[in-house]
């Protein structure tokens, strides 16, 4: 009886996150082995690939962070791909046509994204227009606006400063060069921090009367994450060091994880998604929170738009197509509830990485785009079925 209860509680509390992690590791292992045994063996985990995973998927993770908040609040945003394209075009216009410096273009573009988010959020929050409709409209409007702005041509190239946002790497202040000293120091710090935070959370769980997961599971997970972080860090260091994008991603992830779990506003967004009426009757300004979730989404869409534009070194009318689907899929693979009120930042990031690793792995194996879409769709479906099945038990 005691045995069942221990495992049961563990399944309820941590199964999802551990399962996600296991899935990510399994997918990486799967591609590593498969690519190794091809006629022309390729090392899937070579430094270049690891760097590229982050460079090529940074925008998805950034969009997914904002999308989680929108989905937790009980809404959806279909417009993020178009908004990313439009803000990218704005950034290109300001940089290339107006000749503004990147330190001015970046904040201005973020403001444009925020304003777009505010306009959409206004209709959703204060007029109660379903977000599906508002953002579907936004998806079309801003796709059109992008084409109009670019005159159906590409704008580019960008000066080095702007490009560095997505193609740059942090400088090695230690002067070691190769391996990249500062990268190694930061990675070591990150591993220690992660172990310390894990132990602290465990202690706190015990104090609050939350049944802690079995020590073995905790140790195994911490070890796997630490080993993976160390390995990724080493590979990055032996290439060109930490990409700027990765630094942005880590900072944003930590920031949003803290915001969602440890702040009053974050808690209120979850409450609003869990039961809007109860939240309202508890004195929570639910309308304003929904509005702010959309403003935040707009700002992040602008950031993603700039990063993609910088990577491609040009703003194109077709940029950002399908981004909204990747972001939404990442959020649901990451375990968010379709009705709002639940979902964690860390899950979303792992969800986005799973998508990214699959994209890269399948491309390297020469799997056609047709099959890639089918496989990704099925992964999304299976992840959500897994969730629903667990809940019904």
């Amino acid at each position: 009886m005691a045995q069942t209860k221990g495992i049961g509680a563990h399944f309820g509390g941590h199964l999802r996150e551990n399962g996600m992690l296991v899935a990510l590791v399994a997918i990486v292992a799967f591609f590593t082995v498969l690519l190794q045994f091809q006629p022309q063996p390729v090392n899937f985990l070579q430094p270049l690939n690891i760097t590229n995973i982050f460079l090529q998927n940074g925008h998805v993770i950034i969009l997914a962070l904002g999308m989680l908040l929108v989905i937790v609040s009980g809404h959806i945003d279909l417009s993020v791909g178009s908004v990313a394209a439009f803000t990218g075009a704005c950034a290109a216009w300001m940089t290339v046509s107006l000749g503004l410096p990147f330190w001015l273009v970046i904040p201005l573009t973020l403001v444009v994204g925020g304003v777009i988010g505010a306009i959409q959020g206004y209709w959703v929050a204060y007029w109660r227009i379903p977000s599906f409709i508002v953002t579907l409209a936004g998806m079309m409007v801003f796709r059109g606006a992008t084409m109009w702005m670019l005159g159906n041509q590409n704008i580019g190239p960008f000066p080095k400063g702007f490009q560095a946002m997505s193609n740059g790497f942090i400088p090695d202040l230690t002067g070691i060069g190769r391996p990249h000293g500062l990268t190694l120091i930061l990675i070591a710090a990150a591993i220690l921090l992660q172990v310390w935070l894990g132990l602290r959370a465990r202690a706190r769980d015990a104090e609050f009367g939350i049944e802690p997961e079995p020590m073995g599971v905790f140790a195994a997970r911490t070890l796997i994450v630490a080993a993976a972080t160390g390995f990724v860090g080493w590979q990055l260091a032996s290439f060109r060091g930490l990409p700027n994008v990765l630094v942005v991603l880590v900072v944003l992830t930590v920031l949003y994880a803290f915001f969602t779990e440890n702040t009053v506003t974050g808690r209120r967004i979850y409450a609003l998604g869990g039961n809007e009426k109860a939240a309202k009757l508890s004195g929570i300004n639910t309308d304003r929170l929904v509005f702010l979730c959309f403003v935040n989404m707009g700002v992040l869409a602008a950031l993603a738009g700039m990063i993609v534009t910088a990577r491609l070194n040009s703003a194109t009318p077709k940029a950002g197509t399908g981004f909204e689907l990747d972001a939404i899929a990442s959020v649901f693979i990451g375990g968010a509830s379709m009705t709002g009120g639940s979902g964690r930042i860390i899950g979303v990031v792992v969800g986005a990485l799973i998508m990214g690793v699959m994209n890269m792995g399948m491309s390297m194996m020469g799997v056609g785009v047709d099959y890639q879409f089918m496989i990704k769709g099925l992964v999304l479906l299976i992840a959500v079925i897994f969730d629903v099945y667990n809940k019904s038990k």
Partner: protein
Amino acid sequence: MSLLEMRGISKVFPGVRALDHVNLVVEAGEIHAICGENGAGKSTLMKVLSGVYPAGSYEGEIFYDGVLLENRSIRDSEGKGIIIIHQELALVPLLSIAENMFLGNEVARHGVISWPEAFRRTGELLAMVGLAEAPGTPVGKLGVGKQQLIEIAKALAKNVRLLILDEPTAALQENDSQKLLDLMLELKAQGVTQILISHKLNEIRRVADRVTVIRDGATVSTMDKAEITEDRIIREMVGRDMAHRYPDRISTPGDMLMEVRDWTVWHPEQAGRKVIRGAGFTVRRGEIVGIAGLMGSGRTELAMSLFGQSYGRDISGEVGIGGVPADLSTVTKAVAAGLAYVTEDRKALGLILEEPIVKNISLANLPGVSEHGVLDKRREAAVAEKYRKALAIRTPSVQQRVMNLSGGNQQKVVLSKWLFTDPQVLILDEPTRGIDVGAKYEIYTIMNDLAAQGRGVVMISSEMPELLGMCDRIYVMNEGRIVGELARAEASQERIMAMIIRDNDSKAGKGEAA
């Protein structure tokens, strides 16, 4: 021969033994009541009987008409004439009565519905339950009482032999309840055996032939009509003597705490319709004030419009709390002014069911457990723990999800949430609805404690005995107005009803539209 015999029924869920060798014998043609606290196992037992839990998923045997019953599904049991009407009605509001009547059981040939036939038979069935509504009326337009009757008509359409009613009057007004009970007696005369699950002891006494009491998943006793007394049922339900239904209290009302004057509220959607008409009332420190009235009299609307204008439009009137005018224009301001409102629908409006107790308790006062917008989870847990002890919330841990708690414990979580905002006046809307007898007593005790602390308590309730047992003064509401006020000594059910009826008469006399 008895129609139904359940022998040694046991049902185990992971970690919980919900039913432990329950025996139940129901004679043909009787109304058999089942009593028990929430969580005693009544609903589980009925789910075993109706095939929600199929044969094989429980231990024990069920004999129906002398034959071993082995249901694989609800459809199976319905085919044998065993029909259950759940507390939450299973009607589709946008469909018509006729469409609902034969939902899943359509009057059809080769998949094509014969509407004339369906309407004709609906008309007959409605007549049988004494409901004068057109079969084409959308169900959503009818009140809960009438919807309940439609559920029964639906059961009749399926040739019911054993009708199970799970707390059928929980959401009904007094007069609708009476109609329903009359109908039950009429069906009994026609030979329909019935099982009634109810918390309301007066109605059990009125219609039941025998009562079986279930406690902690086991049968305690079965008694005949002659033996039925409220005291005995309560004693066997809670497993201890309960000398009084309401805890003793020495009432010492103090200074004036809250004054509402000329409160007027318009309907949020229907233009030109006044819902609250110049209502006014007062609450003193340490006082429990009741608001009585029929459903639809505007009690909840009055409370919700006061609480941050959560209901209605063009609200006018004055409110003073502690002698100063209070701004109640938003919930946040109302809470700041010292007001708290415990809703009548705790699941839909009061709680976030998926979240743990600790997060529900802190919800209305997150600044109280945070510093510069950052939550202090240690303090939050300590606060929850404090209220768990103070209000005796029965749970292994405050990290338990609220959805796993019983109704009484859920209500204590809602109360904790509001106590943590340190309110001066608490408006409790149907605070004991759907809560078993033992937990009711605890809620009453908490209310008395709150009054003893010098807070003001406003209690809205449809159960008049409860108001009479708890309140220092009772206001009577009708059609959006306060039509009378009774001190504890002079209050009685008859006088409250008389005030409502006299008010209706005087309006009828003046020819005023309802």
